[in-house]
Structure formats: C-alpha cells, structure tokens
C-alpha cells in the first residue's frame, strides 16, 4: 500500500532543515531585540553578539543539511536563475541574504571598537531579512497542483512552529550570554510567546487534520498518507509543552522566590524537546505530499 512514509524519509534532510532554520531565525531575532537598545552596556552587548552564533549555527545546520538532498549540488548556482518564478529559488535566495546579513553582523561584533549605531541598524536589517526568510520557507511549496500543501494551514503552521521553538532557543542563547533579564521578566515573556504559539498551532493542526479526508486524488486521500496525524499532533503537543514546562517551572518559581536557577542545560533541554516536537510535525508534512492528479 502507498504511504507517505517514503516521501518523508526521502526528504528527511528537508524535515531537519524546516525544523531548525525557522526556529533558529526567530531565536536570532528575539536575541537581537535587546541589542536594538542604545543604552546596553558594552560588555553585555558583546556577549549577546557572540552567542548569536547559537541560533545562527542552528539555522545553518538546517541549510547545509538541505543541500545534501540534492542529486547534483555542483549545479546549485543555477538555482538563482529562478528567483521570483520558482518559490524554491526565492527561498534559497532569502536564506542566503539572511545568513549573509546575520553572518556579517556577527563577524563585525568581533572588531575592536564596533560602532553601536551601525550595529543597531544592521541588526534591524538582519531581523527584517529573517522574517522574509521564514515567510519564504513557509511558501516554498506553494504550488497549485500540490493540493495537500496548497492550503492556508501550511504556511501558518510553519510560522507557528517557528514561534513555538524560536523563543525557547532564544532563552538558551541569552542564558549562555549571561543576560540577566532572561532569568526573570524577559524569560517569562519568551515562554509566554511560545505557549501562545503552541495553543494556536494545535488549533491550526486540528483544523488541518479535519480537512485531510476531503483532499483526494485518483490514488488516495491526504488522510491515507498520514494515518496517525492525530497521534503525531498529540506527540508534538506533549513534547512542546514539556519543553515549555521545563523553562517555565524555574522562571515562574523564581518570581515567587524559589531557589531554582535556570541553568544552561535546563534551557537547552527545553529547547531540544520543543524542536523534537516540531520535527515530528515537519515529518508529517512531507508524508502528506500529494498532487491533484497522479502523484504521492
């Protein structure tokens, strides 16, 4: 019997890319927010700048992984010929622009006397490029003939995934950079964003799931391709909630005078749990692929 398993396993590197990159970009943007302030102490700024490497490497690992699924990476430069026409070219182009802007920002932060004004403007630019990049990933498979992907839920879910995983990864980065507010109000705010996104994401996945049996071609229906979609959504919910819980337990206990501290290990575990949950849903996304006619 046909199943979506083969598609998802065949595109496993893309599953990894679309799990890591969007969350990495959102984490980069969130870590950059304190840097937009003019009154940040030089040392604090330098530490946050340095540890922007955490979300950057996360995004980069995804991008490199996605290149390995190509049959002939030697021809990769031709991909830029399709910018504007092919959504995939546009995505790659946006990725390169974001990583170039963010990468140069990061390198510049190592200069002896970086100019704060320039850094703030450059960061703002990189943030905008990040938002555009995540949006381009969300619409990378927007083709009318791929009926199971040509729905409002696909870009929505990708963005919500990024907003679930991104804040938790930003907590890791800011904690490693020893930025104090992340252990208090800022940390709680980030966790609150994540949980709000998770709630919206679960609703969106639920609505999408309900519509799958009606997406049908001459071979099967989309729900046949992801027979355990409901279960996968539940696994995602449990993993992401566990991740959020790991951070929230400490952050909210501290507010009420608890002695627990947000350790790096704890923050990293929280982020890993959420990303694992997102991975499950990205896997399900690729399982779901089918065309309006004769393709699964």
């Amino acid at each position, binding site marked *: 019997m046909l199943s979506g398993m083969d598609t998802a396993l065949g595109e496993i590197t893309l599953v990894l890319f679309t799990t890591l990159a969007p969350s990495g970009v959102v984490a980069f943007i969130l870590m950059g927010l304190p840097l937009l302030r003019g009154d940040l102490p030089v040392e604090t700024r330098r530490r946050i700048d340095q540890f922007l490497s955490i979300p950057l490497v996360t995004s980069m690992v995804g991008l490199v992984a996605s290149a390995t699924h190509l*049959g002939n990476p030697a021809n990769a430069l031709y991909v830029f010929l399709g910018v504007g026409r092919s959504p995939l070219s546009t995505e790659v182009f946006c990725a390169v622009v974001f990583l170039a802007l963010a990468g140069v920002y990061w390198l510049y932060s190592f200069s002896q006397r970086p100019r704060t004004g320039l850094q703030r403007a450059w960061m703002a630019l990189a943030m905008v490029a990040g938002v555009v990049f995540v949006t381009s990933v969300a619409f990378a*498979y927007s*083709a009318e003939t*791929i009926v199971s992907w040509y729905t409002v839920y696909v870009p929505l879910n990708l963005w919500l995934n990024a907003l679930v995983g991104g804040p938790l990864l930003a907590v890791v980065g800011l904690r490693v950079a020893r930025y104090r507010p992340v252990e208090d109000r800022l940390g709680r705010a980030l966790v609150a964003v994540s949980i709000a996104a998770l709630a919206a994401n679960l609703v969106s996945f639920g609505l999408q799931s309900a519509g799958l049996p009606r997406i049908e071609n001459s071979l099967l229906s989309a729900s046949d391709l992801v027979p355990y979609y409901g279960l996968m959504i539940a696994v995602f919910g449990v993993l992401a909630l566990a991740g959020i819980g790991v951070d929230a337990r400490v952050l909210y206990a501290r507010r009420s005078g608890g002695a627990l501290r947000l350790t790096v290990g704890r923050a990293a575990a929280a982020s890993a749990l959420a990303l694992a949950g997102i991975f499950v849903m990205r896997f399900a996304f690729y399982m779901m692929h089918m065309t309006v006619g004769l393709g699964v």
Partner: protein
Amino acid sequence: MTQYAFHFDGSRCTGCKTCEFACKDYYDLDTDVQYRKVYECTGGETSKDENGYVSTTCFAYYVSMSCNHCDDPACAKVCPTGAMHKDSDTGLVSVDADKCVGCGYCHMACPYNAPKVDREKGHSVKCDGCAERVAQGEQPICVRACPARALDFGPVEEMSKMGERGNIAPLPESTYTNPNLYIKPSKDAKPAGSKDGKVANPLEVM
C-alpha cells in the same frame, strides 16, 4: 513553432503495456524508472437484491500516459534552475541535465506523475517525446510499438481533431496545466477529476 501532442484512443487500448516496455527497452531504463505508464482505472460495485438478482456498476479501463508536454507545465514553473524547460520549437518539455540540481520539486508538482529524480544519475529524468526520433521525422517509440494503434503523436492541430484535451479520470481537470494529450475515451471512462474510480495498480505506476 509546432507544438507536438500525444493522442490516446481509449476505445482501442487493451492495457497490454507494450508502449511502456518499448520505452523502457529503447532507453534502457532501470526497474525503478519508467517514462510511460499504463494506469488501470477501476470502480463501482456489485450488489444482490432480495430476489437474488445481481447487478453491477463496476467498470475498468486503461489510460496510457507519459509526459503530456503541457502548455503550462507545473514542473517547469517550479524548477529552481530552469533545467526543466519547454523547447521553443517543438513545445516538448525536457530536462537539461547540466543545470538540474536534482531537488525533486518537478516530481512533487507534476499532476501527471511524469518527472522523477534518478538518484544514480543525480538529476531528473522523464519522457522527452523522443525528441531525437521526432527530429528525424520518426514517431516516438511507444507510438510505433502499440499493437492496437491506440497511440498517436504529431502536431497539436492534428491530434486535437481526434479527441478532447486530457478529459478522463484518473487525470485531473486539464485546466491546471493544459496538457497536450488528446483523448478518445472508452465507453466506461469517467470524466477528468472524477473520484468514482481509483487507480488499481498504484505500486506499478508510482
């Protein structure tokens, strides 16, 4: 420019699959790759009423199809490199192996299941309408091989006189990509986009 097209006569096809294998033989294709496929479309049910009278709505028919060299090919539209392209003289859609990155997006987007990434070659492969044979004034090998003369190939003006554009299931509605496949349906054929029938040999054609 002459846009070339295929014609398929469903009232003649017996589902023998000679077209499929002539193509595989001619291009020396491996077990996992086939450019032309014969889809078996079946549906309906047989029931017995209280008097023991048996009636049936069952139907089965064949559709032989490769690439339809569409006017608006979904594969070429999404191809990031432009490797998947439509020839400006013949309208035939083919892959430029020197540009293709093998990302598989053409395979994902095509509603006719035509292109596929050959992992060993590292690029997409598909029916090119036997462009070389056509350039020498010959017909594609599948057309030549069909023992029932159910397939034909030629300028779209001639093919379109013999049938309607991609109008039967399991094909989707032709409006998505405007395929250059003109069909004379068999008696049992269901209209394009109909969900009454299903492809009965999925493992063979997918």
